[in-house]
């Protein structure tokens, strides 16, 4: 095994982890605090990608595209909360699943009507499209490093927001006992709207970051939602710290599985058998991980203390 390849695979895993964290943070907050099962969370990822691609193509600048798409996502989040989600907090989970599944269909069809069935893509500015030498002999795409940096910054910002600010304190209090927080005169409804919109923005940012790598396409949100659910379940529902660590673990396991499993299997199996079984097993790895973790810690790695 050569060490430069190992380093670039670790970076690849980190980049996937960061992306998953951006998605998981919002989902885990909404589920942990509002007790709302939001299957449509992946749709924000898709909408973020489309908005960013559209603005970027209009203005011919990825940076401006990002800067415009973020407030637009905030708006999408707020409107969705006010129109639909707000009315579902007190309903049971089955109703929420049905309603948010309906939201997925609405978002998918809207995107289909506005942008058509073909995906949307754009090219990165030349500065970001190249590679950089991170360690001697290890070249890594600049843009993927940028994703890692942005993701870690957002994680830090989120930590500071939740742990160090008044809003964060209210969010934590709201998670523990929303009725009491309301009785103390805090506008809990607005707080919920804010948290939901924050989740939408984070998912949107993940979509914006991935758009130049893959593309904005219909259904991209559904594909990633399942892995995101795995992440928040491993991390413990409602825990941002848990979802951060779980996202990194899942990102690394998935990437390393894709990279090394066939070589490992070739040690024990014939070439032919290893070649066919490796892709199948590597796509199962994260689910196996989830099953193992749930066996030992049914509440996930870091369940919030309040419940």
């Amino acid at each position: 095994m050569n060490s430069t390849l190992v380093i670039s695979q670790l970076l690849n895993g980190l980049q996937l982890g960061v992306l998953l964290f951006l998605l998981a943070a919002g989902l885990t907050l909404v589920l942990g605090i509002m007790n709302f099962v939001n299957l449509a969370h992946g749709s924000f990822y898709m909408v973020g990608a489309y908005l960013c691609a559209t603005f970027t193509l209009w203005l011919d600048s990825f940076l401006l595209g990002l800067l415009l798409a973020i407030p637009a996502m905030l708006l999408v989040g707020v409107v969705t909360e006010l129109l639909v989600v707000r009315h579902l907090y007190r309903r049971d989970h089955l109703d929420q699943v049905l309603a948010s599944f309906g939201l997925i269909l609405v978002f998918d069809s809207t995107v289909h009507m506005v942008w058509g069935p073909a995906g949307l893509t754009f090219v990165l500015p030349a500065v970001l499209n190249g590679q950089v030498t991170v360690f001697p002999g290890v070249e890594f795409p600049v843009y993927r490093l940028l994703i890692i940096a942005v993701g870690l910054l957002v994680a830090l910002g989120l930590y500071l927001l939740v742990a160090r600010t008044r809003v964060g304190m209210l969010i934590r209090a709201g998670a523990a006992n929303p009725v009491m927080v309301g009785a103390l005169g805090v506008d809990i409804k607005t707080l919920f709207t804010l948290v939901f919109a924050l989740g939408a923005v984070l998912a949107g940012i993940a979509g914006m970051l991935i758009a130049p790598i893959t593309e904005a396409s219909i259904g991209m949100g559904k594909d990633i939602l399942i892995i995101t659910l795995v992440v928040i379940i491993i991390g413990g529902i409602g825990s941002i710290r848990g979802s951060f660590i779980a996202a990194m673990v899942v990102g690394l396991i998935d990437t390393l599985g894709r990279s090394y499993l066939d070589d490992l299997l070739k040690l024990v199996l014939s070439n032919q058998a290893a070649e066919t079984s490796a892709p199948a097993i590597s796509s199962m790895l994260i689910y196996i991980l989830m099953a193992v973790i749930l066996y030992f810690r049914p509440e996930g790695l870091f369940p919030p203390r309040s419940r």
Partner: protein
Amino acid sequence: MKRIVVAVALAAMLATPAAFARNVKIGFVTTLTTGAAVIGRDMQDAVNLALEQIGGKMGGLDVDVIFEDDGFKPEIGKQKTDKLVKSDDVDFVAGYIWSNVLLASRKSALDAGKFMISSNAGASQMAGKFCNKNFFSTSWENSQTPMALGEVLNRKGVKKLYIMVPNYAAGKNMATGVERTFKGEIVGKDMTKWGKSAQLDFSAELSKVKASGADALFIFYPGKAGGAFIKQYEQAGLVGKIPLYSVFTVDSISLPKLQKGNLKGVLGSQSASFWSPDLDTPQNRKFVSSFKAKYGRYPSFYAAQSYDTIFLIKSAVDAVKGNLDDMDGMRAAMEKADFPSVRGKFRYGRNHFPIQNFYLLQVEPDADGVWTTKIVETIYKDHQDIYASKCKL
């Protein structure tokens, strides 16, 4: 009251079909949702164009085409095929982009004694052990195109090849095809997750390609995965280092998007195919110019094959003068391949797959600056798939 009205309406609907003169009914299964919908749209547009050009008539009968969406999933494709066969009672089941969908749907159509025509999917099993007297293809057997590309790699002196394909029936056939003719060493091979939640981020695999020391990279990524792959190939810094050779990836589906995104790395890249928009046959000139006039874009090979599908069916129905019960007559007519095909004159092998030419294509801008593929040379003349010998017809 409402319930009674509904019941009466339902009864009326059930009673009507047999009462009228027969139409030629064609069920067309393709993908109309998910990211692959763009392929389905191209096929649908080509079918509609062909119908328009033949005035909606075959052998004096009106033609009904029922489009169904397989949702990119074999099990849904099979359900839709069942529905077309049982409740719509179609005469022909056609379409099928994906080999796994075709394989799952095969029995539903063929066991019911219907004609099945694949407008794209070319699973090798259909050419060999599952070949059927009522199955026809207007495309190719999967491994033929990569076999042609393997010959090109040999001629260019490629010694070490890295292979990346999606992990499903066609992906495996494509890898087998190139491995069959390529004489050098395969230094690495990745099969990535495919289907509804297909893998679109190839970071780990591209890092492996880079470290493998290969002199060429072979890929098969149809639909939206192709555009994503080429972008990441460029971002990973492989352009100019490890040349890219592809089959069914760089086409009129992915090129407009790549051009919009100004991904110049794809210009000059080479692929193999039985067809290209500039293929010089009378039917193809007519097809490409009318398709461009009607829809404002180049047709893809999916569209070309779907267009051929309608003309193949027409040749069968015309031959029996609209007597749709004459299955033997229609089959004999189709076996002659006596219809204007975009690929020019060709014949069918005994497994009902075309024996046809394969060309080397290169991506270039056309006279208006639109990126398209152009034929560089002929790789194979009248090539027959190797599975035909396993077909017991």
